[in-house]
């Protein structure tokens, strides 16, 4: 599903963001990517989306050889996965429905398909009744649900979320995380970059911890912090 082999990323200004990363995700997994701010989580997500290129190593996502793919192929890689961000990234002058439908319009989907898929995606995130509202009329949690519906509307095999709860209060954060877990139970592979300690600890999923660009721990049913070793984490 997702594989990184000996991946390193050094930015143009010389910052080493990732160092010799090896990571493998199988179909249907749910993975938390944890680590303090600046540890390289977002960089890893950017490599998966080919927003940034790996300086070294190989990246495979959904059967795409991301490392060697051309610019023209990038949109098709991105269509094969769904992505949500901390800042929701909704189009302010489009309604909830239109925002979600837009992800299908760009793939030149049939209108019939759009009319079928969009309500389903909205129902999945519990926003059917707010379809005709604009993003500014919604709470943060609701906006993130719209972003989730948009990420899911093309039925991607992989969902990537970079700090999806970073702008939300704890209660709403919980709801979003539960929703992500539910999406995972329906068969979608999910990667969540976060530093929500309590949620990570409670959900008992696979945890990949990054520190200073290096994977320091990869644990099934893990916790945010490795209690046994008492690894100091700065945040």
């Amino acid at each position, binding site marked *: 599903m997702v594989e990184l082999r000996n991946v390193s990323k050094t930015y143009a200004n010389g910052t080493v963001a990732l160092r010799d990363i090896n990571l493998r995700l199988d179909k249907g997994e749910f993975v938390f990517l944890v680590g303090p701010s600046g540890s390289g989580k977002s960089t890893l997500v950017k490599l998966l*989306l080919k927003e940034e290129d790996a300086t070294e190593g190989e990246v495979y996502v959904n059967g795409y050889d991301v490392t060697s793919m051309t*610019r*023209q192929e990038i*949109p*098709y*890689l*991105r*269509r094969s996965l769904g*992505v949500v961000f901390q800042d929701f*990234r*909704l*189009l302010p002058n489009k309604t909830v429905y239109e925002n979600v439908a*837009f*992800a299908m*319009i*760009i*793939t*030149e989907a049939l*209108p019939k398909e759009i009319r079928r898929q969009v309500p389903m995606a909205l129902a999945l995130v519990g926003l059917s009744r707010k379809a005709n509202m604009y993003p500014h009329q919604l709470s943060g949690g609701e906006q993130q649900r719209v972003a989730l519906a*948009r*990420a899911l509307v093309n039925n991607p095999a992989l969902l990537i979320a970079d700090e999806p709860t970073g702008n939300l209060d704890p209660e709403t954060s919980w709801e979003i995380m539960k929703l992500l877990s539910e999406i995972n139970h329906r068969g979608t592979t999910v990667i969540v970059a976060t530093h929500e300690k309590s949620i990570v600890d409670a959900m008992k999923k696979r945890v990949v911890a990054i520190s200073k660009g290096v994977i320091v721990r990869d644990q099934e049913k893990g916790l945010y912090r490795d209690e046994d070793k008492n690894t100091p984490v700065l945040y």
Partner: protein
Amino acid sequence: MKIRTLRYFIKEGFINSYRNKLMSLASVLIVVTSLIIFGVFVLISLNAQHNIGIWKEQPQLQAFCYQEIDDIQVRRVEEIIKADERILSYEKVTREQALERMRERLGKDAAILDGYGADIFPVSFIIRLKDVSYSSEVVKDLEKVTGIEKVSYSQDTVELITRMSHWFSLGCSVMIIVFLVASVFIIANTIKLTVFARRREISIMKYIGATDWFIRWPFVVEGVIISITGAILAFIVSAYGYKAVVDKFTQDAFFAQTNLLSMLSIESVWSRLAVYYAVIAVVVGAAGSFVSMRRYLKV
């Protein structure tokens, strides 16, 4: 490209140009200006060609006899003209007719001719040639005929007009190029503003997997909308303007009588003008968008 996608691009193009009203308007005005200059050039050229064509088709010479020769000598000259194979037809202008024409031409000033008789005018022959290429040799031969004083030669006029229209074209071409380039750049600049206004939207589109062309097309449409609007306005202005000029021209007594110049009717030029404007508009609009995208839309 699917029809619904095309519809989406066109809709977005309109939204873009509407959101960016002021710059769109400025661009439209530049396009209108360029196209009107171009239109004036085209219309003048078409009319010049039309008139040159008429003159060429009816190569006319006028051979003037000496004023003092008598009718017998005039008849001898006439025989020579009649016998010339290269001459299609001729018309004799008697002294009386020449006086009459002069009176007409002078109009209310004709009084100055009072007291003079027709005998102050020479007899002349208006000659039509079978082909314009004979002009110079026929002129040379006629000038040798005893009794003929001089031959006026309308080929000179044709050459003058041809040369003038050549210089005119050159001047206009330079202006047209300057204005078209200005149009391309102002459209590019307008689109740059839209791109900046929509850069967040563009980045979101990229994240959800829109192709480069899917992102670019609305901007191309925006450029074409601006230039097509300009073309429509320019067409209306130049068509009405031209019609007004033609109306004034046909009412002008001098041109109506002399038949020296004729103008093409608006009916015979509008379709050509419309096609030129449409083609230029699409090219200029698309070029503006492409310039803008090369510079500002690194998707």
